[in-house]
């Protein structure tokens, strides 16, 4: 287990997208990205998520609505999905229901999902138990009207897609909208160590326009334009400790702090795929660009995030190959993600610098320049173990490795100082799956476990006994700076898909 103190400036904490592809994640600490929104059925996610040269007719329409044209028949699907974070650090479950269908040259799809997310805070009570002050004082009971925080919260998600194939041209166009009403993003409650309750509410909308062009010879070109808006509010209730001089006791008073986590993202992606001359081989390329702005980030002591804006430009270049060899399919993707991001903090009052200068109200006090060089490797294969007219059984295995490396150049205009930081980590995600296909339905199971990620842990401090003070003074404990504790995330998904007619 890796355990580290977290004290970083951090950008773009967690932006939930229902469909994660084409949005490039930006993280400066390896907080576990719990698979909260990895909820739709897929052929290839059990193969490490290879996607550039391996089509996935189940999952692709959620990413590029134009690929819904590949659904030849109406199908219903459901994919109960469960994830859990190790060390009892969180979990959740989702039940999506949906259908794809087509009428003439038109095609469309609709999916709804209900999701339940467990509170991910440490089970240890916080604030900690009362301890006496010198003189026999103690902590008075906290506000009685602050009941226990609920253990779980629910989200509702919806996806709608419509498209049209232009006859004779091999061209399909589609548009989709994903919307989620959110009351729980996994792990957010851990951003507020020492809080008594975190109430989240907000929504995210993801709108996409997609194009699919298919040529003879199994060549295809895809293009996507997306816009995503994410608006979450965190109402954080802290129980502040005060000293009551009248009773000589510490007492606690509730304080509500409202934090907003807003972001907007524009993205484009183009992807080309074609067979290679050699039998069974295919190759694909993709290029993605994201521009993201975050006018509000949550102000959390855990990560020293200033409640000030930031923006980022993220790019992705990838190449993938696959080979189909009889009953087996092998795929591999290599993706490089260069990202440039800038965040800054603004002075809330005129601020004197250590050099004697004055930063006016609204002037920048700190500027962080991040440069990421991330890489993503995915590989996986699928092998049909049993193949007959009445049923097909296939085994899938895969591995995804994500390497994150960034350098930070921080300019502190108050201290008149420049700091530099290099950081890197790896995330390993083995995947596995099993599918059974019958004429009347299709059953799938897939699982994945992500290693190399962390979860914030706020550890209550031990009280400070001043051994050499006269007499002993004892102060109430507070929390130590939060640490990152290594965890892994396991996701299981069972999906069923059956033709509607």
């Amino acid at each position: 287990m890796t355990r580290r103190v977290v004290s970083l400036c951090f950008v773009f904490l967690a932006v939930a997208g229902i469909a994660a592809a084409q949005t490039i994640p930006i993280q400066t600490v390896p907080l576990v990205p719990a698979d909260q929104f990895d909820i739709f059925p897929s052929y290839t996610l059990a193969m490490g998520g290879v996607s550039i040269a391996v089509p996935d007719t189940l999952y692709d329409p959620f990413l590029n609505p134009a690929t819904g044209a590949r659904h030849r028949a109406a199908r219903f699907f459901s994919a109960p999905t469960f994830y859990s974070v190790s060390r009892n650090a969180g979990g959740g479950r989702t039940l999506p229901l949906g259908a794809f269908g087509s009428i003439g040259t038109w095609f469309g799809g609709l999916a709804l999902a209900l999701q339940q997310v467990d509170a991910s805070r440490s089970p240890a009570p916080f604030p900690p138990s009362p301890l006496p002050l010198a003189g026999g004082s103690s902590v008075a009971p906290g506000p009685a009207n602050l009941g226990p925080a609920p253990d779980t919260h629910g989200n509702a998600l919806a996806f709608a897609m419509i498209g049209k194939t232009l006859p004779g041209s091999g061209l399909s166009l589609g548009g989709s909208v994903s919307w989620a009403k959110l009351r729980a993003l996994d792990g957010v409650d851990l951003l507020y160590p020492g809080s008594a309750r975190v109430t989240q509410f907000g929504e995210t909308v993801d709108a996409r326009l997609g194009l699919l062009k298919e040529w003879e010879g199994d060549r295809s070109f895809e293009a996507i334009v997306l816009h995503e808006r994410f608006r979450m509010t965190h109402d954080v209730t802290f129980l502040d400790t005060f000293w009551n001089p009248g009773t000589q006791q510490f007492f606690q008073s509730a304080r509500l702090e409202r934090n907003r986590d807003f972001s907007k993202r524009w993205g484009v992606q183009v992807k080309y795929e074609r067979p290679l001359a050699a039998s069974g081989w295919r190759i694909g390329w993709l290029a993605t660009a994201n521009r993201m702005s975050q006018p509000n980030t949550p102000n959390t002591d855990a990560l020293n995030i200033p409640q000030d804006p930031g923006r980022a430009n993220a790019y992705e270049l990838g190449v993938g190959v696959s080979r189909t060899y009889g009953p087996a399919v092998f795929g591999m993707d290599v993706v490089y993600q260069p990202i440039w991001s800038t965040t800054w903090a603004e002075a809330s009052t005129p601020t004197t610098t250590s050099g004697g200068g004055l930063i006016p109200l609204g002037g920048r006090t700190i500027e962080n320049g991040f440069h990421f060089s991330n890489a993503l490797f995915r590989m996986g294969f699928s092998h049909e173990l049993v193949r007959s007219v009445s049923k097909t059984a296939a085994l899938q295995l895969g591995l995804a490795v994500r390497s994150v490396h960034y350098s930070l150049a921080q300019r502190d205009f108050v201290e008149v100082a420049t700091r530099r930081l290099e950081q890197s980590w790896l995330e390993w995600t083995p995947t596995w799956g099993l599918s059974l296909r019958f004429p009347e339905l299709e059953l799938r199971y897939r699982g994945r476990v992500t290693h190399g990620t962390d979860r914030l842990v706020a550890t209550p401090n031990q009280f400070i006994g001043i051994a050499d003070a006269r007499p002993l003074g004892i102060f109430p404990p507070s929390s130590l700076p939060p640490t990152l504790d290594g965890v892994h995330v396991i996701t299981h998904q069972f999906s069923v898909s059956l033709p509607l007619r």
Partner: protein
Amino acid sequence: MITRIVGMAYLGLLVLATGCDGWKTPSEPPASIDAELRQSLGRWGTVPIGPTPTQAPALVDLGQALMFDKVLSGNRDIACATCHNPVSHAGDGLALSIGTGGSGLGPSRTLGPGRQFIPRNAPTLLNTGLNNPYLFWDGRVSGFGFGGGGPFQTPAGAALPSGLPTLLAAQAMFPVMNREEMRGVPGDHDRFGNVNELAAFGDSDFVGLWQAVMRRLLAIPEYVSKFNAAFPGTPTSALGFQHAATAIAAFETQALTKTNSPFDRYLQHDDAAMTTEQKRGALLFFGDKTRCASCHGGPLLGGQNFANAGVPQLGPGVGSGTPLDLGRGELFNQQEFYKFAFRATPLRNVELTAPYMHDGAFSDLDAVLKHYNDVPTALREYDASQLPPALQQTYHGEDATITAVLANLDGRLAQPLHLTEVEIGELVAFLKSLTDPSARDLTSLIPARVPSGLPVQE
């Protein structure tokens, strides 16, 4: 064939993945000064102070009159407010106080003929209403009820009357007992030439003296009215000096609690309340380099413990240690552990309450911090010429005294702190952030007159 190769490669990677954390050691990350400071504050239990209980107006009115009335002193020449004067921020601005027989107010107050300095500095009364667990420099009045005397431990032991609501009220019972401060010595005559009847009581006759003071007060009809208004359920015949002390404490609590400093606002999550320099100073104060907070921590920023800070010895001395002042050691029969240890004072509004330390050896905060920066050296090199001329001759700078003080120096101060001039400046800036602006001018607390008709500010 290809699937076999891929399968083998996959299994190999899987084995690798399960044994790999994938971490590289991070370099030092930058942290925000506010996050760092708030963590430090939490470490020392320094939390905001809630409101003090509202005091009954009649009680405060009585307490104000008593605080400024010289009738409480044996010679009718000194009031509580003489040494705890609003003009001097509820202190007197003197290194060592001047008690009965003296004349004048504040730093210009002078000794009376044949009198000597009170051995210790008059601490400010600001924020004494916050219920400090120890009062007086040696903590001889404390909130620990062992040794008799109800819930408080005081020099009066079991003679302390019941019904005192707070430790501050218990403390207010004692200055009238002190011969140098207020009571006077046998043979003294008051300002009108009358015999000082309070001086005639024995030093251990607490009850007799307190009754005598009450006789003086209740001989004044206006006081009878004020006492009856303040204690409506108590017949006049049942009034004792504990009622007077209760009223004095109520006035102190109501009028002299000053906890709206920039630092207090910062504690209540106003990050902009303090300047960056003050925050840097606070980081030093609560950090490991100085560990100031190990004595001056908690919600009151001190007041909970005692330390021998190697303060130069000045003045006439106290008790069996005379001419030295053994501090809490005198209280505990010169027990080595407490020798030269004095209460670590709460620091709110410290900017306003110079001179500093138990004997006022340092005239400003800069001098205090330079002393703490290297206590052994500073004590040996103490320059007594900074003291008022009348006090210079009372400085005990001989080697034996310095050696005795350093022999029992608090372990936290034995080694130099190696603070730079800039850091000392930042610490001073932090200490100035503890000032409640409303404490800067307390003159509105001075009444125009008192029931005895004695002069208020002379």
